């Protein structure tokens, strides 16, 4: 991570933990994250947006920081929103993974921590794999946005994220037992948001129909050519 990026992440973490309203986010300058330095903005790239929104998802902030960052920039609002949900979900999935790990390491049954049971280990490994997939998808979509058109990548990333949310939230709840089903325990704010993001800005049907039709339109050998052509845009 670049020095700028890690400073940005530190600021985002601090501000999102404390901020009670949109005003404090505006004060911190997030609205200009994507605005060029020459125009008085922060001059960040889409990788920065991914990093900041991922932190917002991880910290569980309900403030609309995504809107603050993305509204000022041009682009299809469905796509921008879908990208934001992917980033937020990447952070939230990492958070519920962390909560589940802490929980099974402390909670004891049958005379030992739940983490000692192989069945529990294996199911949390699946949660980790799903969270990893969403983090990779988010970073990949951000890279594509830096090179211009990212319709393909955003569709793929959002669809993959929707899948991961279904699998991941179920595992996190299972690992927590009944305590995770209470209003008091702080798991549900994360799983509730994740479930909402699964619907928002395109559910599985929406993106799979769209992406499937686009892929078919590329012809038999078109899919591989398209995937590689798009990622090769970053060649140095």
């Amino acid at each position, binding site marked *: 991570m670049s020095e700028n990026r890690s400073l940005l992440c530190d600021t985002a973490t601090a501000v999102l933990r404390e901020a009670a309203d949109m005003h404090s986010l505006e004060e911190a300058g997030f609205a200009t994250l994507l605005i060029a330095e020459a125009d008085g903005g922060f001059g960040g790239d889409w990788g920065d947006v991914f990093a900041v929104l991922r932190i917002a998802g991880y910290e569980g902030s309900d403030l609309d920081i995504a809107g603050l960052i993305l509204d000022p920039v041009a682009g299809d609002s469905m796509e921008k929103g879908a990208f934001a949900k992917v980033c937020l979900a990447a952070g939230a999935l990492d958070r519920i993974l962390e909560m589940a790990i802490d929980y099974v390491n402390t909670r004891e049954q049958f005379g030992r921590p739940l983490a000692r049971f192989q069945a529990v280990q294996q199911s*949390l490994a699946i949660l980790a794999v799903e969270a990893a997939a969403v983090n990779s998808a988010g970073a990949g979509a951000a890279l594509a946005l830096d090179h211009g058109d990212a319709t393909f990548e955003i569709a793929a990333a959002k669809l993959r994220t929707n899948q991961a949310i279904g699998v991941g939230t179920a595992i996190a709840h299972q690992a927590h037992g009944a305590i995770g089903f209470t209003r008091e325990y702080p798991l549900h704010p994360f799983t509730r948001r994740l479930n909402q993001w699964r619907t928002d800005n395109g559910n599985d049907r929406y993106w*799979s129909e769209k992406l499937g039709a686009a892929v078919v339109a590329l012809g038999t050998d078109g899919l*591989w050519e398209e995937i590689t052509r798009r990622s090769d845009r970053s060649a140095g």
Partner: protein
Amino acid sequence: MQSFAIHPFSTPGTVSDLRAQVRRIVSECEAGWDAADRANSWSVADPAFSARLGDEGLVGMIWPKRYGGHDRDPLERYIVLEELLAAGAPVGAHWIADRQTGPLLLRYGTEEQREKYLPGMAAGKTYACIGLSEPGAGSDLAGVKTTARKTDTGWVINGQKVWTTGAHIAHAILALVRTEPGSERQAGLSQLLVDMDTPGITVRPIINLAGQHDFNEIFFEDVEVPHGALVGGEGNGWKQVTAELALERSGPERYLSSFALLRYLIAEQGGDPAVQPLIGRLTAELWTLRQMSMSTAAKLAGGEDPAVEAAIVKDLGNSYEQDVPLAIQAVLTADFDTRSDSDLARTLSLLLQTAPSFSLRGGTREILRGIIARGLGLR
């Protein structure tokens, strides 16, 4: 916490040339390739094709020139591999030598071993096989019982290996053996590189459930090899094998090996609006896996050890490749004849049979998830 730290894949400036080179070779050679073979590409051995890739400088790409290599960047090699796999090219003959045996020799081998094997490997003409599994040592590899007794002139090997892919075409086997008499578990193991034509070695085919001859069992009866067959340190075998497995797990072959099936689905059934959402979903998963595999390749290229990331990529890639044929089978119309001669039908039938092996070879699903769980601090 971060479940997966992303390592940016810095796409090499030569990427267009490399893709064009591979696509040209493929178009010149593909006339005789069977559709179903294309969905099994790194298991299909075609010595002429391997030698052609060797001539083109596309085997042993990242090895030093003095050993017949080409001093290329690991990410350039990644591009070549993904192109070959996406095309379903028959890369099985040289695959293991290029992916793991050669790199292991560069890291641990003696000068003599490197000079003897690497140039032939880089030419796509010397093949290797992996001698790890035994009847009593599968997932629990530390149960290896094959022994090598040290004598004044060398080593004498006795024992048995099993499931050895390509042993019937390989020139050499890198075998994990017990060199310290009476040692147990991970201790006292070493790696020996043994020429397959050494007297005392018997290779017997094991035919898989699809009728193919890919793997074998190997018997060692008083097989005498010189001291120079020892690769790396005596007793260091466990550590070396663990490093070798990371090379084996994260590559593009863990999600692209059956890409041909998706291609045939698009070609033959893509016009069906009921099939398009599945094509969309499979594309989304494929694209995501590629991001993960490239990030892991970049980490490996940066000199770091991505053991957990490699396990994540392999586990997810295996699940994906096992899901693809089942999902396609489920979505086809009732009048689609899976016994027909179409590319889709033949490839689908084969993969429905062979898919279970994906989460066995190279470390089972349960073992990989155990590695991931350890990375999470659960064990």
